[in-house]
Structure formats: C-alpha cells, structure tokens
C-alpha cells in the first residue's frame, strides 16, 4: 500500500495535505505514515476494541495451548461424575465423569478453528468473486451476482446441514461449506467497492500510464478494498462461530467422539436445572467470542473509515 500515503502531524493525528517537498524543511516533526499505520493508531485509541482484542487473543491461546497443559484430556474419564465446579474440576464433570473444563477447551479449539477458517475461506473467495464481478462487469458480473443472490435466498443452515456430511463431518469440510455459503456476502460488498473505485481518477491515471489489469487490481484496487474485507472477515468470525455451533447443535456439524461448543450444549440441554455448569460454560465462551469479535470489528471499521465516526465522538 506504499503509494497511498498521507503524512500527518504527530500531535493532532488529523490528516494534513501532503507536502510534495517532504518533511525535511518543516518546523514541526512530521512523520510519514502509511494508511495502514494510521488505521492502526486509530484502532489503538478505541479502548473497548483493544480490550476485546486482548481478551480474544487470550481465548484463542486458551483454546490451543490449554489442552496441552491441562491435566485431563477431553477423552479422559475420571472417577468423579456429575461433580459441581471445584478446584479439581473448575467446570465440574458430566454424568460419565468427563472433566468439563477439558471438554470445553476441546470444544473451544474446534469451534475457534472452524470459525477462523470460515472467515478466511469466505473472505478469500468473496474477494475473488466480487473483484472479478466488479472489475470485468458485463456477463461475468451478471452471472456471478445472480449466483450470489440465489445462494443468499436459501437458508444457509439448511444447505450446510445437507452438505456438511459429505466428508463425514470433518471440521474442515464444515468450515469449507459454511465459508462458501458466506462468501456471497463478502462478494457483494467487495463488488460495490470495486465498482466505485474503478471509476476514480487514480485508476484512470494508472491505465493511461499503461498499467496492466493485473497491476491495477493488485496495486490499486486490492489495497483500497482491504478495509472493507478486513472488517467483513472479522465479523465473519462472530457469525462463523454462531453458525458452526448451531450446526453442531442440530447434529450436522462436529460429531462425537470429537466435540464443539455447540455439541456440548446439545449434550447438556436436559441438564440445565440439575447440572447447570454443563450448560452455562460452553455458552459463555460462545458469547464471549462473538462479543469480543464484534467489538473488534467495530473498532476496525471506525479505524479504517474515520468519516463514519463523525457523529460518534
């Protein structure tokens, strides 16, 4: 993104007109910052978003490092069954004697893994889909966008339930299917951005200078559409974890003996009153993830598009 630069005065942070002569002969210290650096600084000022990011990273660490450290594995059956939370079993145990903390850690790991993959698959596919559609327009645009409309009229969970079983219900198949079904959303947004960008002067200038399609797409359109994509990708982690757990809950996602947060809640649904810890802990983690990710997404949106925040502060 090196060619889209704007320098800014360090003290105020407000964008100043770019000086062609550079910073050397100015009396203030002026540092040149790329768009990305500016966005990053604005993000850091969004306290709730930063706090959420820290919390989210901690949860992800817990999901991937926790199972290696914790004394029980999710497959272990301990002699204690139906124990309420205690120092030995922080989240209690189920009726078979599974340590529920180990179960939740495993479920968390699977759910986070699937949610992150959904975001990656959907945004990659969506960028290509929307980019091609918006840049080339014409027939390919109509065909691709009608296909996106079709997919969006069909309840995603129904299609995912029907298709998720193809690979025998492995986690990457679920991620692939759910990611593919969310891609049209990203594609629509990216197409909108590309359509408005390609008419702008700097793209025209690049073309006049003899830039190839490839150059224009990679060096001009992609960096400028980046903000939209990164916000969508973040929010897709939140919807991704909600749809994966829902899918596992209705029985078409992650299968036993493996587990996911949705599956744990399914198994605990009859125990809400007798052994509430089985039900509340997995749900709490889903809420925590979706909540923090939504806040991060909000912070990113504000950071990349400061014009939107005008009314907020």
């Amino acid at each position, binding site marked *: 993104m090196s060619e889209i630069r704007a320098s800014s005065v360090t003290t105020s942070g407000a964008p100043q007109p770019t000086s062609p002569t550079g910073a050397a002969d100015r009396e203030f210290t002026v540092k040149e910052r790329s768009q990305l650096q500016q966005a990053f600084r604005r993000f850091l000022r969004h306290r709730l978003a930063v706090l959420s990011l820290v919390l989210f990273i901690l949860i992800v660490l817990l999901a991937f490092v926790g199972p290696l450290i914790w004394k029980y594995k999710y497959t272990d059956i301990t002699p204690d069954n139906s124990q309420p939370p205690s120092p030995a079993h922080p989240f209690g145990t189920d009726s078979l004697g599974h340590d529920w903390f180990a179960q939740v850690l495993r479920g968390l790991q699977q759910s986070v893994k699937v949610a992150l993959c959904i975001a990656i698959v959907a945004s990659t596919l969506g960028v290509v889909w929307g980019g091609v559609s918006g840049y080339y327009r014409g027939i390919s645009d109509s065909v691709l966008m*009608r*296909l996106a*409309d*079709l*997919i*969006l*009229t*069909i*309840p*995603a*969970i*129904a*299609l995912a*339930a*029907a*298709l998720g*079983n*193809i690979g025998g219900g492995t986690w990457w198949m679920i991620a692939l299917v759910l990611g593919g079904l969310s891609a049209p959303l990203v594609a629509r947004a990216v197409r909108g951005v590309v359509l408005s960008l390609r008419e702008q002067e700097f793209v025209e200038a690049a073309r006049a200078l003899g830039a190839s399609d490839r150059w224009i797409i990679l060096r001009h359109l992609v960096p400028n559409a980046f903000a939209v994509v990164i916000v969508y990708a973040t929010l897709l982690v*939140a919807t991704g974890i*909600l749809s994966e*757990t*829902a899918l596992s*809950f*209705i*029985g*078409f996602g992650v299968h036993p003996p493996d587990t996911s947060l*949705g599956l744990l*809640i*399914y198994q605990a*649904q009859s125990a*809400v*009153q007798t052994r509430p810890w089985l*039900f509340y802990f997995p*749900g709490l983690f*889903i*809420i*925590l*993830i*979706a*909540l923090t990710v*939504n*806040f991060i997404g909000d912070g990113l949106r504000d950071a990349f598009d400061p014009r939107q925040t005008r*009314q907020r502060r």
Partner: protein
Amino acid sequence: MLAYVIRRIFVSIPILIGSTILVFIMVKFSGDPLEGLKMRNPPPPRQTILNEEHRLRLDKPVWEQYWLWLKGLVLHGDFGPSVHGNINIGHELGDRLFVTLRLVVLSVLIALIFAVITGVVSAVKQYSATDYSFTFLGFLFLAMPSFWFAILLKSAGIAYNQATGTEAFFTIGEKSVLLTDDSGWGQFKDIAGHMVLPTISLALISYAAWSRFQRASMLEVLNSDYVRLARAKGLRSRQVLVRHALRTALIPLTTVTALDIAALLGGAVITEMVFQWHGLGDYLLRSIRDHDAYAMMGWLLVSAIIVIVFNLIADLLYSVLDPRIRYE
C-alpha cells in the same frame, strides 16, 4: 400496482428454477437416499434395491431426474417420491407450513416493533443511559447463540411452572395432544400459549441486529438538513420525529428485514428443535438424516417461495414509505 405484483411473480419464476437446480445438484452430492436400505441387516434382496432405485428415479441421469421432478410439480403438484414410500411430501409440507409460518411471521412482527421502538429511542436520546443499556442489550443478543437462549427460556418456563405449580408456559410442541376444551377459543388459547416462548426466542436474534440498524439510520436522518428545517419551522418535535424522520428512517430497515428472512427460516429450524415443534424445520432435519432428496427439495422450494414473498412485501412497503416510488 397489481400489474407490478403480477410482473414480479413472473420474474421470480426463473429465480425459483435457478435455486432449485442449484439445490438439486447439491442434494445429489449430499448422500445416497438408499443408504439406510442398503445397510440393513440382513441385506434386502437385490430386486428390492432395484425397485426402490426405480421408484426414486435413481436409475435415470441427474438432469432427467430434475426434469421429471419439475414436470410432476408443475403439472400435478407432485413433490416427488419420498424415501418413506407411505409419505406424501406435498401433504407433509402443507400440514407443517402454517405451524412454521405463524412462528416466523409473529417473530418478525415482534422483532420489528421492538427494534423500531428501541432504535428510535436510542437515537433520540443518543449517549443517554437508555441508549447505552439498549446498545449493551443489542450487542449481547447479537452474540448469543439462538439455541442456547432458546434452551434458557425453555428451562426458565419449566422452572416457573414448577415453582408456581401451574401450567403457565407450554414448553413442548406446537399444541397440546389432548385438549380438554376443544372449542374454537380453547384451541386458539392453547396454540397461543405454546407460541409464547418460541416466538420470543426466535424474535430476539433478529431484534438485536435490527435495533442497531434502526438506531444508525434514525441518527443519520435526525442529522439531515430537512429535519433541521422542520424543527426550524417550529413543528412540534413529535411531528418532526414521527412524520418526518421515522418514515424515512424505516426504509433501510425494510431492506434488511427482507434480506434476513432466509436466516430467520434457518433460525426457526433450531427453535422448532428445542421446543419440539412439528414444523417445517423438524421435517427438514428428518429429511437430511434420511437422505430424503425430494423432501429436502420440497422444503427448500417452500422456503424460497416464502423469501420471495417477503421480498415482494418489502418492495411494496417502500412505495408506502417513500412517495417517490411508484410501481406501475
């Protein structure tokens, strides 16, 4: 107006055909409808399998299967053969349609009413304690898995019933199996009683997103010049809010609602599962489990029609809200 509606219905036919083709191909990939039969122990005679294959049209190429399905549907209203030979998919869908539809329609209405009220209040009293609490609730419900919340509501209902020793909340099924009072009023009361908790749980999920949306669009309108002008003219603030601002601020929400209908139908699948309703969602889950291809097709066709009808209603509402839009 009528001409517009008729034209829109004709335009939606290619969309329906397109989505059924897409789904048909996907369903074909999703599994073998005869898996249950073939895995049976002792194995059934070869002739039985061949007969079933013929009955389910599996011995024909895929495009011909689709063509036969479409022809049967259009000419005879036949939804195709089910894996369960004694079940007529059309009857099954018809019986369950209204169970699901009353859940979805009522949820949409409740979610919309609450979303508009809280969105407007939040926007008018921006940054007040009320705004912050609605915002907090909105984010919380947005992050809450619908099935988790539904189970929570259900168990709260059960706990209340146990504590008071009454049957205040019905938590299982869409109606009582044995009804003592089977007069019209008694039946209505029974069905309404069963709807309370499922409707709330389905409505809350969309409410969260819609109220955030309504707040944003209301804020935008409130900061626009024509609202400032209306205020400057000395109109009463109630009139400015309702007649000038709210009417315009409802237009974006209409679009979002129409777009979310597909997701709501998906949400109904989960709500029906938790509350053990015998609606379309329950039928879908069973069909997927049995690899009942034509039943899945039937479900997807019905829900695609519902989505299209809701979109049409949304488009007609535009013309009510925005006098510049006229459908000829």
